[in-house]
């Protein structure tokens, strides 16, 4: 039982990070119809920002928000420089552009910083854990779960209660009609990138907080997972992205925890197998997007 609870906490913690990343992908996809493969590099950028902030002697409570701010800025610049010029282009054009941005950023990290993994200075407290009964919960897990919950609640509030948030949901559903309401395409898209940058930044901080290192390709695997999570949840659906993120976190953690030793090498394959089975049952994802198959601008 305690082992089960322990694994549940691990799953919520990992799933929460996937959920944040998947949400960032979903917000951009719902509005632009584009999968931003450079999303992972926003995470990596956050990692390097944390590294430099640590080297400069900034305390973590300042370094972390600063790193998220760097991710937001990078996301908005990415949109302005790379994606805006191809916004009217085909989905394939946008996809290739996002690959190009990802590769350019990876190359910059490799050449301007280092090819190899770099340590990130973190407060000692993060590496500690607290015991609750027989459970041991890492401080970074508590941090991860708390931050994820706060972000999900705040984002939900933003999307439901502010005019820009409502406009973003409207634009995701029918961009032309949103423009008829005076919604400015640039404002909505820029806002969507800012939010996805913030989500990637938060995920990046949580990711690095558990590993204490950063390398040029750090963002690739988690964002690939988040992409799988967002498809599992229902591509373009925000609630779906969160559901998919947590579902994937649970699948991975519980496979690791309960698979017999000789099966462990097939863990990833089994996890994907379960995702495929779920998709066979629900082809549009766990919680499909409202406007599935609708034309995007």
């Amino acid at each position: 039982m305690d082992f089960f609870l322990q694994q549940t906490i691990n799953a919520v913690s990992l799933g929460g990070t996937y959920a944040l990343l998947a949400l960032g992908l979903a917000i951009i996809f719902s509005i632009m119809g584009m999968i931003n493969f450079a999303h992972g590099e926003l995470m990596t950028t956050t990692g390097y920002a944390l590294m430099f902030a640590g080297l400069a002697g900034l305390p973590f409570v300042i370094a972390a928000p600063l790193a998220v701010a760097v991710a937001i800025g990078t996301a908005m610049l990415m949109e302005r420089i790379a994606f805006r010029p191809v916004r009217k282009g085909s989905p394939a054009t946008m996809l290739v552009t996002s690959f190009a941005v990802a590769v350019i950023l990876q190359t910059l990290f490799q050449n301007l910083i280092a090819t190899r993994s770099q340590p990130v200075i973190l407060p000692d407290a993060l590496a500690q854990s607290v015991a609750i009964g027989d459970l041991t919960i890492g401080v970074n897990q508590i941090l991860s779960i708390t931050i994820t919950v706060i972000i999900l609640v705040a984002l939900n509030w933003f999307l439901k209660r502010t005019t820009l948030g409502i406009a973003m949901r409207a634009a995701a559903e029918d961009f032309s009609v949103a423009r008829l309401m005076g919604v400015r395409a640039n404002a909505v898209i820029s806002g969507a990138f800012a939010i996805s940058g913030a989500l990637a930044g938060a995920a990046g901080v949580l990711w690095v907080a558990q590993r204490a290192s950063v390398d040029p390709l750090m963002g690739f695997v988690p964002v690939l997972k988040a992409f799988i999570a967002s498809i599992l949840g229902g591509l373009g659906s925000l609630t779906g992205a969160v559901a998919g993120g947590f579902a994937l976190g649970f699948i991975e953690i519980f496979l690791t925890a309960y698979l017999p030793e000789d099966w462990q090498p097939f863990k990833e394959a089994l996890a994907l197998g379960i995702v495929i089975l779920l998709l066979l049952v629900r082809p549009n994802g766990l919680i499909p997007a409202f406007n599935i198959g609708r034309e995007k601008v």
Partner: protein
Amino acid sequence: MQAPILSVEKLGVRYGAVEAVRGIDLAVGQGEIVALLGANGAGKSSTLNAIVGLAPSTGQISFEGAPISGIATEALVRKGLTLTPEGRRIFGSLTVEENLTLGGIPLGKAQEKRRENLERMFALFPILAERRGQIAGTLSGGQQQMLAIARSLMMSPRLLLLDEPSLGLAPRIVDTIFEQVAELRASGITILLVEQNVAMSLEVADRAYVMASGEIVAQGTAEELSSSHLVEQAYLGHA
């Protein structure tokens, strides 16, 4: 006709090889209800979409005397004209009230005015007040059409382009919608109404144009057109 609030000259709309609108002229006077009639595929929606900048066009369009060709849709609506698109296109995943809130965006910072308009819409369409928290996609067709019109009216437009408001609705609901259109005139709003329901449109309209294959093939006052066979001929392709 009084001084035109909208005037369109040599308007053309082309989608690749398809020439949907072929150099039409039309004008709408301040305070008028003008109907734009014609069979399916005549080019009516393309005309309205071109006026609000949602379809690529050639020719001149002016609103309240100033040229508006090439201005982005989101900027145009702030000038006081808007379109209620064909097929309603309400935001189905949003609530009724959220749909209306969006309609008020062009009013900008005028919070007081936005609240006032929301109350006015609820008075004009009481059913929407009852359902303000409901997800709009679950409304009936007639209610969705009322929401689509109310959403456009939220921005206090001086010119409303209304594309086939009766499309797909039950006859009783169609009556209600036309009554509401007629009532709007009293509020001083000018309307360019696209419809397939010729008889009812000519009842509420002051004047009408008839389109066929991207051209205007007949025009006149509602009375003239009701008492002649010009409209039927246009529909049958003899004009």
